[in-house]
């Protein structure tokens, strides 16, 4: 056990010294201010147009309802708009502003938009070369000729990856909160958010709807984002075991993640696509109550699909790594 902790420490040091995490923090520090600025511009322009948030909300409901009558919009977009309209109406009826500008709301929105591409890409920066770099650098020969079983070495790498994924998420949320707070103020933890909207055909079922605080919402969201980020990490881990070159493993995973977000937008009639891991990554749609990319997908379904893919990836990683011949 003590030896295992030393192994995990070794792997953590390697990733740290490679300055992977530092690069991720730099990217966040460069990009988040850009998004904050964009959000600030939106807030300023709507402040100029409407006397208060209720008028703005009414306008948005009207706009979206009008759009529904148009023939040019595809069916699934209509469904999405119906859901949005009914949610906005729910907020209006209860006199709750869904768009008060504050750091917590900004962070929630940012996480929600980042789960599909941005967070997976940052996770890949660590996950893609955690095994393949040892092979392309030749250090695997030193690593595997020490008196330690191979599965222990791989397990220490997996634990290290899990810790870095968690750290990346917490850092993303923290940077987003701290930077946006400069502009929007650091409040908003206790503001209410409605959750539990359920889509029933084209109608919104609001019987299960209840209010939670934005702070609780952020925690729930972070949990879901963590689950989907871990799935990406573990599959990248497997690719990293299978492929010698770091570049090849990075490109493979980026292609998988990006094609997932493309598929999610166009595959609504190809039903079996819902068993692919990459269309299930955006778990926050279930929290928002928007319609899922493919009919029949639920939170439980997506979690199960991601879990099965993850377990299979871990199984393959260990099976291959413990048996494979290190030829070159």
């Amino acid at each position, binding site marked *: 056990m003590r*030896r295992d902790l*030393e*192994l995990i*420490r*070794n792997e953590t*040091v*390697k990733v740290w*010294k*490679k*300055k992977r995490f530092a690069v991720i923090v730099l990217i966040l520090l460069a990009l988040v201010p850009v998004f904050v600025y964009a959000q600030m511009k939106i807030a300023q322009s709507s402040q100029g147009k409407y006397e208060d948030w209720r008028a703005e909300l009414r306008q948005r409901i009207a706009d979206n309802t009008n759009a529904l009558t148009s023939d040019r919009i595809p069916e699934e977009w209509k469904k999405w708009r119906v859901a949005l309209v009914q949610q906005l109406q729910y907020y209006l009826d209860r006199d709750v502003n869904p768009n008060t500008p504050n750091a917590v709301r900004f962070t929630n929105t940012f996480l929600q938009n980042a789960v599909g591409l941005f967070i997976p890409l940052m996770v890949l920066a660590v996950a893609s070369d955690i095994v393949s770099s040892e092979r392309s*650098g*030749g*250090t695997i*020969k*030193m690593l*595997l*000729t*020490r*008196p*330690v*079983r*191979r599965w222990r070495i791989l397990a220490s790498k997996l634990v290290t990856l899990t810790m870095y994924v968690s750290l990346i998420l917490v850092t993303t949320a923290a940077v987003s909160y701290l930077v946006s707070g400069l502009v929007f103020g650091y409040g908003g933890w206790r503001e209410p958010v409605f959750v539990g909207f359920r889509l029933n055909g084209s109608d919104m079922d609001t019987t299960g709807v209840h209010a939670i605080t934005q702070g609780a919402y952020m925690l729930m969201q972070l949990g879901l984002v963590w689950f989907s980020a871990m799935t990406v990490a573990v599959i990248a881990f497997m690719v990293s075991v299978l492929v010698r070159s770091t570049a090849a493993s990075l490109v493979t995973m980026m292609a998988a993640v990006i094609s997932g977000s493309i598929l999610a937008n166009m595959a609504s009639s190809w039903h079996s696509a819902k068993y692919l891991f990459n269309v299930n990554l955006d778990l926050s749609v279930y929290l928002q109550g928007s319609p899922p990319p493919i009919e029949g997908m639920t939170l439980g379904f997506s979690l199960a699909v991601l879990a099965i893919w993850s377990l299979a990836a871990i199984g393959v990683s260990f099976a291959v790594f413990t*048996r494979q*011949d*290190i*030829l070159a």
Partner: protein
Amino acid sequence: MQTDVKARDISDKASNSSETERERANRANRSRLEPPVLSVEHLSKSIRGRKIIDDISFDVRAGEIYGFLGPNGSGKTTTIRMLVDLIKPTSGRVFVCGEDVNKHPERALRHVGCIVENPEMYGYMTGWENLDLFARMQEGIGDTRIEEVARIVRLDARIHDKVKTYSLGMRQRLGIAQALLGAPKLLILDEPTNGLDPKGIKELRAFIAELAAEGMSVFVSSHLLSEIQLLCDRVAIIDGGRVIAVGDVHEMIAQAEAHTLWLFEDPEAGRRLLSDDPRVDVADQDRALLDESVLLALPGAIPTRVSQADIPAVVARCAAAGVGVLAVQRVVPTLESLFLSLTGGGRDASGS
């Protein structure tokens, strides 16, 4: 500083050949009584249906320097990778200090330090951080041991610099330091002199001799016979994935036919004289077997096979005939000529 003095002391000793002979004999006697440190039994490996290693067996005793000699592509590295559990053998077994490497690598590899091919370390970390990393993978290696091995390989001055700033020789030494961390009973070095300059090679030889004198077994692979000759007690010769000979290095070299090079003032007259002499066998066809650096030193020299005892008489005969002899030089057999004498007529005839 103290270790510096010691290292010089040892290299002085190594250059004194009678001392070395006696040390060798002592070491050999002592080690015959103990069980082998490394024992390879009927090792074979097939990759995609092609047999790369075919039924290799040999033993390495405690405190001996064992050579593993073969041309490039003969299966040296594949075999070494099987010794340290990087490649699983198709059949056969490897024991280190009685532990099966394939079944219990965590026990067997405790006694092994190795460098397989190039000593690759993490370039983005310092030498110390690298050693610390590998020290943590094994019980009971503390900072004092890291300091000690850094001093032994004389890297203590640069140990806190990033490895990517190291020269090849320094990387080699860091690799050896890593291999020595766990005070192994068996040190495996794969072509350790590759890429080192002559001074570095000499230092490495003295260093290996010192380690063996302290009781460590050293297993060294090389494609250069001279390298093995200068370093090893016993040798296994591998070709085409098979061990074609195992034995005492010096006995084996004595078996191989040595060549003698002749350089005359008048090459034509000299050649005629040698060809006429029944004691001399002019062997122009063997030119390809000889060490190029020796041929370069004597351009136009005539390679021959002649018994050492007959050389004075042949020289006298040349002098009497008025043909000036510029140089007569005995040439150490190369791996190629050793192969010839071992396989009795060409490597291709041996079926490889």
